[in-house]
């Protein structure tokens, strides 16, 4: 009863338009007061949340994405991929997914990937006469790979909340990322042959020599490989990988490519700074709320209820999936992690669900949230880049959304796709 009342109050606050970080902190504060805990716990909790070497990776990864976006690097990469696969029917759609995947390996955010690839791929596909819905769906969905393929900001936050190793979470995202890219590609080819793409593609040769064009994309690929390869090889921690990626990016775009000046850098720095603080306010608020509900033993009540009423792991995942689909209609991904996880964490043990697997599952659901209306940031970004009708974008992502849901089933049936890499020596 108490549990229901507290959670209802929280969601009432959220839907009344109170910013998520504020709503969480206020609810937490009220619960502290009722239990007689001094409110000194709140600044303490904020300090504890921000005083973290792990979360430091967040602003750095965001900064790298912002710099790449402003420097217009996506053009080089997209052209290079085009030069290899652009000639076949549906080749531009294939290039789009592949470019999204490669940029996902540098960017920790999906919106940045959508903006980056969207600006170059949408005009190209439209010019060649691709089906408009198909174009926008491919981009909106392809960009969500940004948070599944490492680095990934939601995975960092998940690791911080569950005290899993960030490096393990990153490595766990690689396998599912590749499988999802594969599934998207298969759909793209099928859809293209069913009329999504023109029968005759432009010759890819007009872009110039294959190797010369590829050479221009090489730095981007090198940065991506250094970042994830460095973590896999144990050369550096995820936070260090973020910093090394940032340094390589700054040197590349400011000194070699010369496509970003100090003003551009300043803009990127301030933008990623405010985005980080915005997220961390929620992290702090969620920690206050998370501690407060522990005082009322809510997570344990819920896990007890789940143990008594939900009989199998499959059932549990299904219920959580429905919950996350509904929340994902309205809510931002990090906020979803931070609100749901403290409540559900003890329940994972009930059916022996691996927390690393659950994190990847969770991120898949966040990907879905990014492309589900009414609030799906990737939909908005693609809509504004393409200057199209939002409804068209939404219809375009439907097949991809179904693929993602199917992906949950695949990961459930073959957990090794997730768990193999982090534990392979």
């Amino acid at each position, binding site marked *: 009863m108490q549990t229901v009342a507290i959670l209802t109050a929280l969601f009432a606050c959220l839907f009344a338009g109170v910013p998520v970080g504020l709503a969480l902190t206020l609810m937490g504060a009220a619960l502290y007061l009722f239990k007689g*805990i001094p409110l*000194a716990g709140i600044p303490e909790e904020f300090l*504890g949340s921000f005083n973290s070497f*792990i979360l430091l990776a967040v602003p750095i990864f965001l900064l790298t994405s912002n710099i790449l976006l402003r420097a217009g690097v996506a053009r080089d990469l997209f052209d290079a991929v085009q030069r290899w696969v652009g000639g076949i029917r549906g080749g531009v759609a294939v290039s789009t997914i592949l470019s999204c995947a490669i940029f996902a390996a540098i960017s920790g955010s999906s919106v940045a990937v959508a903006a980056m690839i969207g600006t170059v791929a949408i005009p190209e596909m439209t010019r060649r006469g691709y089906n408009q819905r198909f174009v926008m769906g491919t981009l909106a969905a392809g960009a969500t790979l940004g948070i599944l393929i490492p680095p990934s900001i939601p995975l960092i936050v998940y690791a911080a909340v569950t005290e899993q190793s960030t490096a393990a979470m990153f490595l766990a995202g690689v396998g599912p990322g590749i499988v999802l890219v594969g599934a998207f590609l298969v759909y793209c080819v099928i859809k293209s042959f069913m009329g999504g793409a023109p029968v005759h593609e432009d010759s890819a040769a007009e872009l110039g020599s294959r190797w010369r064009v590829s050479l221009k994309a090489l730095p981007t690929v090198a940065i991506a490989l250094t970042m994830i390869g460095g973590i896999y090889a144990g050369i550096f921690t995820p936070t260090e990988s973020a910093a090394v990626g940032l340094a390589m990016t700054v040197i590349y775009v400011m000194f070699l490519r010369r496509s970003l000046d100090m003003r551009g850098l300043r803009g990127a720095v301030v933008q990623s700074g405010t985005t980080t603080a915005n997220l961390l306010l929620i992290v702090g608020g969620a920690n206050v709320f998370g501690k407060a509900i522990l005082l009322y033993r809510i997570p344990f009540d819920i896990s007890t209820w789940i143990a008594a009423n939900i009989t199998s792991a499959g059932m549990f995942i299904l219920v959580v999936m429905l919950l996350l689909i509904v929340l994902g209609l309205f809510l931002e991904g990090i906020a979803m992690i931070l609100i749901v996880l403290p409540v559900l964490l003890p329940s994972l043990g009930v059916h022996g669900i691996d927390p690393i697997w659950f994190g990847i599952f969770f991120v898949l659901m966040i990907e879905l949230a990014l492309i589900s209306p009414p609030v799906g940031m990737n939909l908005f970004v693609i809509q504004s880049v393409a200057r199209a009708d939002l409804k068209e974008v939404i219809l375009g992502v439907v097949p991809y959304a179904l693929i993602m849901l199917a992906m949950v089933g695949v990961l459930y049936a073959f957990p090794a796709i997730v768990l193999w890499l982090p534990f392979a020596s």
Partner: protein
Amino acid sequence: QERTLRIATSVPQDHYLTVSIAEFADQVTERTGGDIAFEIYPAQSLVTDQQMDQAVASGIVDIGVGSASILAGTIPALNIFAVPFYFDTREKLDNSVSVGTPIRDTLDAEIRNVGLNAVFWIPYGAIAMVMRDDPVRTPDQMQGKKIRSFGATVSEFIESVGAAPVVTSGGEQFLALQRGLVDGGLTGWSSITGRRLYDVAQYVVTTDHMYETHFALMKQSTWESLSPEHQEVFREVGQDLEGKLLDEVFAVVDEVKAELDGKMEVVELTPEEKAAWKEATAPIARQFVEGADPVSVTVFEEAEKIQ
């Protein structure tokens, strides 16, 4: 008159420290006839280890289980237990951490000086060194190696033998070893089995060079709000447990070693090898006293006496 006190720990429900404080709580409740009850919040559900002393001071929790090495930031004299090989036998410990011995009483007074009260000291045990690929026996084999560290004094130890300390959180320890980010790491015995470090490191070297203790910390004013009878119960229960737990701490190391059989090679150092380590790390003792505060100097002089 009933009273409920909140206890916080930073380790899981079934961890030795939480179990110990729970036993303390049960006994106090029983012996006060239910006057004092407790609620336990384990696994940093209420407070993390880094914030424990502050949380006790602000009244967020009534009793916080915190480690000497973290409190040592504020009370440098507590670093005495990190001076290598000064507290490596049961006898030395009996002469330094038991109530009534000079070191214990000095440190207790020092803790009271910062407004806290160590209701009871929870023995924790020695620190061991896991090595990924090399069965290190002597300090000169440490040259140039990267070793996981978790604090200032641990880093000093690592550097004194020519190795490089890499600060890594407990959670990243496994992967840091697995991926070879570090060649080895210093860690508590229970972490070796608890975090399955035997899957990623082949050797554990029993340097047993430093002793770690934890405290059940109360705010001085909360302590004084207890009746003298209740305070007496707290003290008695604490002292009873301390002796028992110290035995247990030594037993646990043997249990861990038995559990590691076949999973990891335990490198037991010979007395000569241990002497080499002692010599190599001797500068740390000098560093501890040079320019130290009077309390640290007092504690160090007492520690010299029990060697």
